[in-house]
């Protein structure tokens, strides 16, 4: 690579490096490298010292466990998720420890400033073309409109009944095959659920 850079390129490079160094400075919590001056930055030197470690995502093993999750709260959370409650205090302590470290991780992530940023729900085509493709308009519903008729002086649309809905491939499978308990009565076949205490 050529060592020669024209003055214009050099000044723009300086500007870019200065901006980068400022942002690195703000995200470092533990140690900060020596402040960068208005000089050409040694990129290799810069990259040789880590400014962040994945270890920051784990709680300090020496620090005492914090009390933010009480056993009552743990039980509430387990009930919300329909998970079984811990069978012994040792198991409970393990659960609390795991939960504590998970919360530490989440708190770390939450430190990022997301002001004005919409949360991502899923990865979809959000371009204009993409949105146009999923827009539901008259064309998409043509068939449904054909199955309606306008009634009376009030000109009210009404869906015609008596059409057979083609549900092939959708409804023709053994629905009750997965039933834990089932029963067949005069009206038809039902799933059975018992709500009494075991």
């Amino acid at each position: 690579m050529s060592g020669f850079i024209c003055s214009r390129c050099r000044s723009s490079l300086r500007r870019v490096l200065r901006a980068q160094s400022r942002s690195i400075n703000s995200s470092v919590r533990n140690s900060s490298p020596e402040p960068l001056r208005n000089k050409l930055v040694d990129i290799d030197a810069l990259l040789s010292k880590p400014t962040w470690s994945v270890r920051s995502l784990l709680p300090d093993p020496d620090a005492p466990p914090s009390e933010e999750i009480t056993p009552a709260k743990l039980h509430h959370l387990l009930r919300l998720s329909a998970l079984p409650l811990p069978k012994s205090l040792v198991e409970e302590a393990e659960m609390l420890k795991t939960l504590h470290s998970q919360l530490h991780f989440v708190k770390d992530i939450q430190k990022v400033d997301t002001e004005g940023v919409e949360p991502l729900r899923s990865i979809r085509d959000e371009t204009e073309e993409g949105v146009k493709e999923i827009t539901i308009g008259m064309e998409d519903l043509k068939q449904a409109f054909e199955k309606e008729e306008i009634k009376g002086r009030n000109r009210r649309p009404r869906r015609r009944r008596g059409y057979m809905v083609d549900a092939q491939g959708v409804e023709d499978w053994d629905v009750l095959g997965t039933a834990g308990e089932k029963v067949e009565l005069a009206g038809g076949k039902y799933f059975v659920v018992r709500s009494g205490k075991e």
Partner: protein
Amino acid sequence: MARIPPSVLRRYLFGGHLPTGGCLRQVRHCRPTAHSLSTKRYHGTQVPSANTESAGPETTIPFRKQLKDEAKKRKAEGTGKKSKQDSQKLDSWELTVGIEIHAQLNTARKLFSAASSSINDAPNTHVALFDVAMPGSQPTFQKETLIPALRAALALNCEIQKTSRFDRKHYFHWDQPAGYQITQYYEPFARDGHITLFSHDGIAAEDGEQVKIGIKQIQMEQDTAKTISQPGEIHLLDFNRVGLPLIEIITLPQIHHPSTATALVRKIQLLLNAVDACVLGMQSGGLRADVNVSVRRRDSPSTSSNSYGGVTGLGQRTEIKNLSSFKAVEDAIIAERDRQISVLENGGVIEGETRGWTIGSTETKRLRGKEGEVDYRYMPDPDLAPVVIGDDLIEHLQSTLGVLPDEEILILTKEYGLTTKDAMSLISLNEGGRVEYFRNVVDEYLAISSEEPTEEVGKLCGNWVLHEMGGLANDLADEENPLKITSKGDSVIPAKQLAQLVQFLSLKKITGRTAKKVLSELFEAGLTGKEETAQGIIEREGLWFRPLSDAEYDDLAREILDGNTKVVEEILAGKEGKINFLVGQMMRADQDGRVDATKAREVVRKLIEEHR
């Protein structure tokens, strides 16, 4: 044995008339007795005789009228002490109600699977893999469900959001296979609507002529499975209903009286039916209401921080679930309001809890308190794409909604001269068929006689279509729909014949009594399949009105005067009013209704002058 209302009993005892038809729908519309073709019924406490010697100046009050007057007096007085106490309490406390309505959409398929929607099909026959949350199954949004949903939102004047998204509401229950319900919590498809209720919709008198209730939002969501509980804590599950599309309509807490709340639910059901969005009503379980009730003191400025949808300063609210009829809505709100007022007046505090109501109880019951409050952990559903609604679709649906009930009532009252009450009865009968039939009759009438003003014709035909035809009864007629009125406006009595009959009556070519007789015959003919015309029946039975000749008037008048010498003397002495009594006697004497009151009065007056 069920309690039989006195009016029904009375009609049976005095008129031999058994109740017919859908009584639940026609609460407001009271049908008079059918006129039996054969014998006359004596309703007075005295048998009227041909010569009226025995009748004194005082007329006998018919027994039926006596009972009605007593009932009216009782109603006017109110229930005495209790109503006075209630009104004092209500003066210092203000009730606030917000309503959440869940209504089943009228679609061919479910919301997120292609299984077909059904009402009472064999259980577990319309279930897709996704409906029972089979691992690996994915939701596929059925676009056709948007049509009734958008129509409902447009009928309620909402702003349609171009983009809306689905969220998961997590809770565990055996009727929710996935462990979450897919709803639209953060971004519903319709917001900021309103519905206007008028006094004829049944709102409280305190709300005046009309009241506008705001609608916060309307969202689409899934229905749950049907549970049939059996003794022994066993429950049978039918998953046909899982995944059916529902809309949830959330109103703003701007309702302040229980009857207004009931009127709102009733009107929303009517509107949704009119735009074909939700065609099953509360009675079939297709529409359910949850009610939020709170009270606050009227005088003192509110220091509470409770607010909802922009309405501030509200008291702590409780939610009442499981309301399955209009009356239950009204009764539950009244019971809860009274309970909250008594708790607060005794220095207590209202808990934000969920309560239930069973029909026939006097107080709501606590279902779960704040500790049992479920944390739904709402999260956007990542499997479903956002719903983007095209402008062309919204415009088309808006322009093809049709004439809505409010506008229809306006047309019926302004153009056709009906009263609001009659108009409302008319549109609610036979699923819109009765009003179609009525308008057909008016059209036929105007075809025969085009000079008469439409309002007059409308009033006359309205009376006949609603009241006279409504009172027809026959053994051959079917219970549900005796007049066989279709939604197109056809009936067992052709519109043309009724129009002709009514026109004859209007021209005084037949008497009212004759007209009713011919109507019954037309009804019978229609039921037995015979072709009859009004003209034909009148001609055949010689029912044309023959007015009395002058000689006959004279004779009749003389007869009456001879029998009432005392009254004649009173008239000669100056009591002019007694002439009406004599005219009345004349009309009663001639049982065919051929006496014209004005002519009779002239003749009587003339004869009395002769006596002077």
